[in-house]
């Protein structure tokens, strides 16, 4: 735990932090509003007391009530991973500014978060689905995702076309029904 980093973060972003700075093991966690992401990350990236040059990871999180975008940063000025949580996005239309202006490599990670959680990263030049089919309608890593329904909601019906059968199927589950052999 790096106490100095905590002090520096608190003094620099005092009013922007939406929660207390938490520290555990070798991680320091700050929470900010989604709108502050570009400014805070730019400051962390550029200013000489932080120098968080590496975006180690970008993740989306669905807490059940809100959506979060979580950034993990690395710097040579501290021994801690810095976790920046952009908290408090609505689950209906989560929006957060993109960080591709700082790290071009965040593009695909943002695409992945969009694909899995539906978080819109404003400013990402290529925000489209990356893993799921382009006509897929739902976001699989959300906590309210239910495979059978959500996959069926997509126009192509998930990947059903690969194993379509012509036999009778159960209307509820979509599974094939085996005919018992008639005596």
């Amino acid at each position, binding site marked *: 735990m790096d106490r100095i980093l905590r002090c520096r973060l608190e003094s620099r972003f005092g009013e922007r932090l939406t929660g207390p700075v938490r520290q555990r*093991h070798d991680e320091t966690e700050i929470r900010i509003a989604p709108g502050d992401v570009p400014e805070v990350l730019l400051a962390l990236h550029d200013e000489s007391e932080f120098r968080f040059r590496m975006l*180690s990871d970008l993740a989306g999180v669905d807490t059940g009530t809100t959506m979060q975008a979580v950034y993990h940063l690395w710097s040579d000025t501290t021994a801690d991973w810095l976790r920046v949580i952009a908290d408090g996005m609505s689950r209906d239309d989560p929006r957060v500014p993109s960080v591709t202006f700082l790290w071009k490599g965040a593009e*695909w990670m943002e695409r992945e978060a969009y694909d899995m959680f539906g978080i819109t990263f404003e400013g990402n030049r290529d925000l489209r689905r990356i893993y799921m089919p382009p006509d897929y309608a739902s976001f*699989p890593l959300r906590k309210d995702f239910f495979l059978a329904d959500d996959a069926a909601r997509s126009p192509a019906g998930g990947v059903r076309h690969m194993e379509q059968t012509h036999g009778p199927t159960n209307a509820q589950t979509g599974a094939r029904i085996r005919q018992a052999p008639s005596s």
Partner: protein
Amino acid sequence: MTTRTPFDIPAHASTDDPRVTLDEQLGVFEPIPPYPPRTEREAEFYTLRDGEMFLNMGPQHPSTHGVLRVVLKIDGEKVVDLDPVLGYLHRGVEKLCENADYHQAICYTDPLEYISSLFCEWSPVMAFEKLLDVQVPRRAEYIRVLSGELNRIASHALFIGWFALDLGGLTPILWSFIERDEIVEMLAALTGQRMLFNYFRIGGVNGDLNHEFMSRLGTWMSKATHQINSNQALLNENEIFVRRARGLGVIDTATALQMCMTGPNLRATGVPFDIRRAHPYSIYPELDFDIPSRTEGDCLARYLLRMDEVKQSLRIIDQCLHRMPDGPVMAKLPRLIRPRPGRAYAAIEGPRGQYATYAISDGTDQPYRMRIHDPSFIHLQSVGLLTPGNLIADTMAIMASLDPIMGGVDK
């Protein structure tokens, strides 16, 4: 310049429609998605200018290292632009892990990068240990480092073979497989499996070192250096190989950091960034090894750097064997793990770069959210940056030199 937008073509060209030409019917424009563009970038990419055409590389192509589809926009032999299309190998590992308990989740991460499975286990295991506040026994840490470095050599050996194979050399891949097979057999004696080891457990490793592993390791170590050095004569000085790889796919330090690159690909640009030193974990602070780096940032540098790393790994293995302490290999843990609610992030240095796991616990026996960060995914992205302007043959060379594994890319 005539510009034609492919989206004028009806979504599902019907054979009955007389206006649909044979070409459209047969799918000449197959890589063009049959839906309107969703982003500007997509619209720009899927618009052909005069003399350009699409080349659909993959999903089944010998050089895509898995099930990857890359749509190349080519002008003659020159690649103008490219658009990787992922998802053919997507299994939803993160979702699966959320529905498995902590022990089972480790099993799912194994086949992510199937040629360096131990590293895929290592980062989730470390993240879960952080969530649980477990102290791993020192012997277990040593065994983890020992087996991990062996796996790193196996992975690099395969990289060297693949890289040469994508440049057209038939022999190196088989010679690398000799080394890899010996390591894999050795690890099979230790872990019980040849490829998806599933060896690391929360709080230690599954089983102590055994005699068969040690004897195999000793035999191999006595001849490994000689074997690796003698194999180098095939490629390292070969004019054809060097001329093809040198100056190809050059990426500078600033861009590499922007592209979030880690591992050998970043070190080849001149940054000696290695999480083993930059953010030490396990017992790496106690070990003596160098971080090789090169300044060229081209394919040849990336290739030679991995050669150097193999030698450093051999050094680490040697030290591990000499310093191996006695003791248990598993920490005392309850059978059913329910960590306190909290978040943990663990990153390790794998053969391709940073493997990281971000785990959130909600107090139940299943992780609430488990994010897996994979270096292949990050590195494959920069193919789109490095390739335009080069030839088709260079696309394969650049892609191979970045060493992505599709199992990790598609999670």
